[in-house]
């Protein structure tokens, strides 16, 4: 399997002495949809900055598709598309001009650039806005414009730094569909996000970075399987008494209010058994949801463990 990105012993100390990256190492395979998660200030954006050459590293190496970013700067940049966290296009230019200009920076002839520009603006629902000044776009549209701009040269590796921050849920879901589609077509994607539901839904592999160190690097499936238990909120049309007992091993129940209960089910325990027991007790269930996102539970536990270690 080809390695899309290989980071070895990456270090970054800023001029003010802040040690943002403490020798992180990471590999992302070609075709992967990879989540790079971490709290604010953990080093996610610095890592992306180093990969995209916007931040000068203090040590270590970065290779994109086997080429060192220091020695093969032009080819690695051709392979890379970056959607930064903050809006970074001219607010005075038209939507179409922003994408066409970016295509020009990559040396795309005008006709090809125009075709790609139309293709991505249409896919991201911005074609009707193409002649408008970018400052008039909504926050979600600006984020989509940055994705269209990053894709116009059709990079093999797309890095998205919190692309759905501040975007409403409907739009976020349509962006998920779009990203899943381009990933299916072969584009390797690295995603940082604070929406852990987003990472869980989209990504196959995950790394968690905290205080400049990688504290977890595994597959999403393996990580989720490490959950000791899951907590569900079950809603019932029937009135639930406060002293409800299920009398089941490895299952705890707590009545939230007269129509909702909180059930904690240990890893490996079949949830259907809980439903059967509730049916026996004449408590029909109308809806069910996780109390917290599963990845969020693990994310918080890993960060707490790291804090305790340090």
């Amino acid at each position: 399997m080809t390695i899309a990105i290989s980071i070895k012993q990456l270090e970054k100390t800023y001029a003010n002495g802040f040690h943002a990256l403490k020798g992180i190492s990471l590999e992302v395979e070609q075709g992967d949809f990879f989540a790079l998660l971490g709290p604010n200030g953990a080093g996610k954006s610095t890592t992306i900055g180093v990969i995209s050459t916007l931040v000068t590293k203090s040590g270590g190496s970065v290779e994109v598709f086997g080429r060192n970013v220091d020695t093969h700067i032009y080819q690695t940049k051709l392979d890379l598309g970056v959607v930064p966290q903050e809006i970074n296009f001219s607010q005075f230019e038209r939507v179409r001009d922003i994408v066409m200009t970016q295509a020009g920076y990559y040396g795309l002839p005008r006709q090809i650039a125009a075709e790609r520009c139309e293709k991505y603006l249409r896919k991201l629902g911005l074609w009707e806005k193409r002649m408008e000044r970018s400052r008039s776009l909504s926050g979600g549209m600006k984020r989509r414009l940055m994705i269209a701009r990053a894709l116009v040269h059709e990079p093999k590796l797309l890095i998205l730094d919190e692309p759905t921050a501040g975007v409403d849920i409907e739009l976020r879901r349509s962006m998920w569909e779009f990203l899943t589609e381009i990933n299916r077509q072969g584009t390797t994607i690295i995603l940082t996000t604070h929406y852990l539901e987003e990472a869980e839904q989209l990504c196959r592999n995950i790394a968690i970075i905290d205080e400049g160190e990688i504290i977890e690097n595994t597959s999403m499936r393996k990580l989720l399987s490490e959950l000791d238990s899951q907590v569900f909120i079950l809603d019932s049309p029937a009135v639930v008494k406060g002293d409800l007992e299920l009398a089941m091993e490895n299952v705890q129940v707590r009545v939230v209010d007269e129509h909702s209960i909180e059930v904690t089910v240990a890893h490996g325990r079949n949830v259907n058994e809980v439903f059967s027991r509730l049916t026996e007790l004449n408590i029909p269930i109308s809806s069910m949801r996780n109390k917290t996102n599963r990845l969020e539970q693990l994310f918080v536990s890993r960060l707490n463990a790291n804090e305790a270690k340090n």
Partner: protein
Amino acid sequence: MFANHKYIAFETIVIKEVRRFMRIWVQTLVPPAITIGLYFVIFGNLIGRRIGDMGGYNYMEFIVPGLIMMSVIQNSYSNVVSSFFSHKFQRSVEELLVSPVPNYIILSGFIAGGMARGLAVGVIVTALSLFFADLHIQHPLLTIAVVLLTSIVFSLAGFINALYANNFDDISIIPTFVLTPLIYLGGVFYSIQLLPPFWKIASVLNPIFYMVNTFRYGILGTSDVNIIWAFVILGVFCVVLYSGCIVLLRRGTGLRN
């Protein structure tokens, strides 16, 4: 990056730069025309009539080349410094930095943009001057060469200013406190022969003095400086400033963390 890709990238930067100053033509092209027009009316016409001849020409004819050169210098500089700093301020410079465009193409594109505005204003001011003076260009090639080189020098200087600038004050300090005094003391309005000995020597140390006088020589055929020496100075400035820009870009000064 292949040569044709580099050319497309260069062309893209130039088109973007020209589009920028044309979009705000009321701020970029009209004010210098009005300012220089007022110089023609007040200094050239009203006061100039009382001054009489200077350097063998009437005062209006004498100041026209200097005023054209002044507008080229100011606009070449201000286009690059304001445009590149605005790219930094809005972070749209990151579009360029993550792309495979080589540093020398980035620099050349912005310099070409600065030259385009400097020369556009120069042409407007020249056209305006025809209402006030009869211009018969004595050395056309030399005139074109000196105006192009001067425009390059001040576009490069504007680029360095933009790299170091951290806020909008930083892009107005150099034009206000360095460029304007050097231009006014660079022989735009007077011949060096009028100055006392100390100020004659001081003028010789002012690079703008050589540019203005060489341009005046191209148009009127008269100059206070050695023309070959003036071109050497222009050439040295071009090479030094260009090299400085490339080194700063490579280091990422003002651009990369």
